[in-house]
């Protein structure tokens, strides 16, 4: 079962799905690098978990739109990554990451926390039960914020974090390449249970982002379940 699934689908309290695989990545970064590092990882995952928009035709066939990509250079890290060309998606991720960063900063803790990207499927239930969301893949990025004393250390950190992120990208690609469980391609009536169809140019699998900050005692003080992205959970 999914060890980190406690944070999945809190409202319905559904049991974790059998097929939820979980991947954990850890990074140590300087405060100003948090956003870029998180965006790099999240965008890389979403690059692999987004398709073009589906256009259903008669007889259950569909055609798929085209996904564009673009290079993003980081300002505080010697690193560049590729993301899907979708301003909406980028905005959504930036909003989530921004809140995570603020929470990290204001928590007054040692700067430890984690941000999670969960892909789920919706399973419609009959009234009065609410729909279930069943996670099938969970990515957790554990972040440790370090404070550096001088410019030289910062320069080294730029390079080191860049190298670390290269490793993370390779790890992500390895997971993607396993071709493990992916939701079946849905029929037109089911498509909103599998994909987020709200964006106008791309279609990621349904996902949600959450985070939590760890205090210096290592316990999670602020468990924040924030639906930072427009959540298609009904109710």
């Amino acid at each position: 079962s999914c060890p980190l699934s406690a944070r999945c689908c809190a409202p319905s309290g559904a049991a974790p799905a059998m097929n939820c695989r979980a991947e954990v990545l850890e990074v140590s970064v300087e405060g100003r690098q948090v956003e870029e590092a998180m965006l790099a990882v999240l965008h890389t995952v979403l690059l692999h978990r987004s398709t073009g928009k589906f256009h259903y035709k008669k007889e259950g066939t569909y055609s798929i739109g085209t996904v564009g990509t673009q290079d993003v250079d980081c300002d505080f890290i010697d690193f560049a990554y590729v993301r899907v060309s979708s301003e909406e998606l980028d905005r959504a991720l930036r909003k989530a990451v921004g809140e995570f960063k603020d929470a990290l900063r204001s928590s007054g803790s040692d700067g430890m926390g984690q941000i999670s990207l969960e892909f789920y499927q919706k399973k419609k239930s009959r009234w009065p039960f609410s729909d279930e969301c069943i996670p099938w893949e969970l990515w957790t990025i554990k972040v440790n914020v370090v404070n550096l004393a001088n410019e030289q250390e910062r320069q080294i950190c730029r390079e080191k974090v860049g190298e670390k992120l290269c490793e993370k990208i390779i790890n992500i690609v390895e997971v993607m390449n396993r071709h493990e469980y992916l939701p079946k391609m849905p029929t037109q009536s089911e498509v909103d249970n599998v994909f987020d169809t709200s964006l106008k140019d791309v279609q990621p699998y349904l996902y949600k982002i959450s985070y939590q900050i760890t205090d210096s005692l290592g316990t999670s003080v602020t468990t924040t379940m924030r639906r930072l992205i427009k959540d298609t959970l009904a109710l």
Partner: protein
Amino acid sequence: AMDTDLSSQDRKDLDKFIKFFALKTVQVIVQARLGEKICTRSSSSPTGSDWFNLAIKDIPEVTHEAKKALAGQLPAVGRSMCVEISLKTSEGDSMELEIWCLEMNEKCDKEIKVSYTVYNRLSLLLKSLLAITRVTPAYRLSRKQGHEYVILYRIYFGEVQLSGLGEGFQTVRVGTVGTPVGTITLSCAYRINLAFMSTRQFERTPPIMGIIIDHFVDRPYPSSSPMHPCNYRAGEDNGAVYPSVEGSQEVCTTSFSTSPPSQCVFIVTKAHFQTPPPVVTDTLKVPVMGLAFSHQLSSSRLSYQPAALGVGSADMGYPLLFAGGLNAAHPHQLIGPGKEGGVPPVPSQSAHGTQADQERMCTPLDGVHYSAATPSSSEDTETVSNSSEGKCGSPHDLLETIFIRKVGAFVNKPINQVTMANLDIPFAIFAPKNVELEDNDPMVNPPESPETESPLQGSLHSEGSTGSSTGNTHDDFVMIDFKPAFSKDDILPMDLGTFYREFQNPPQLSSLSIDIGAQSMAEDLDSLPEKLAVHEKNVKEFDAFVETLQ
């Protein structure tokens, strides 16, 4: 066992998918090494021409090269498609950085649905490729290309050759996709020993044998960086245009004067004989008077003015620009390559130092390369590279500077040592006698730090002139003339040339000599407390001074 065989339609589809996958793979890799940020747009309505539902532009030349390499075949067992990414410096050194391999193995997945699952997985694999191409070391290098080096690609089909990547290369797997006819694997083997790149001391690898033809790919994006991956293939005859080399100097010609014997200069080192054009030679980066020049030195048959002709000393090596085929029959005549590449001929320099009016000669860097004569080689090998055919005069042209040093009149050795009488052929003395010596020769591998002895300083301290040995390359060059460009004697009493000559041999700074340097360092440290005490006493004065500044 007769499984459900692939239907012919499926087979056709699969072949098509694999073919276009291979082409798109090449596009992604090459575009990721252009040195520019790539950006394509998403489109919600399918255009029908975007393979694998990804917006990947097709650079026509790249597709052409890929198709040529594939020659109608598809990757199969033992027949892999490889994209080799290499780096070439402005000095002509080159090095393989990565080999991207698209391979097929025998492991078949008969159950998989071609038109659906295989297609989507190929799409996913391309996305992975997009991501991975940004995380290997060559990506950052390629983003910085343009001035000191360019990134080149080469596509080949057949067996994977990884030997050019040096020891300890690493491999990253991009991904695999099983198909009914085999499993497609995409991976990258990359060189890891790039550490020296940052210090700009590239490995002295032999230049690429064979013909190097560079031409620029059409820029897909108008606002792009100046360099593009060049197409490296053998056997063609395009003009080569090289990136601009820093430190290109104007020609200086001057009259001779009587001053201490000359010291530094450069020797052309290895020349590589390539009968087909063009010739790429190694280059030297040598400090001259504290300035560092980086040039592509083509070894040429040069004529020079032997000291016997009464040429005054000359002293320093002055940059003299020429690229000329020399007529061995007229050793004292400097023949300019008037015929090639639009370079104006250099008038012969008289021994008496009449100042030639020659101000500036430029030759496109690729323009004229000649192979040097080594004793063992045929002196008739005067190969001429293609001139840059119309690219001469383009912004990419460079001044190619070759330094010649003249042996001064006060050279403490028999003058005839310098004459050509001893030589069987012109410039045998310039010829690299021992290639190995170069590594020890400070002029070839100049020390970087000022504390170590530069060839300049070394020579300044040498007895009289440079030793005596014929092996000493310091003596082998003769100044032809020195005249600083844009500086005429009749305008000012003290012109640049005079200034240059007068101040050209400064005594070595004592602090630069290692022993003295070390000593003085120790002394400095010892005297620090004392100095600090003095400063402390004067603190009020310092503070007052600071006040006045505010």
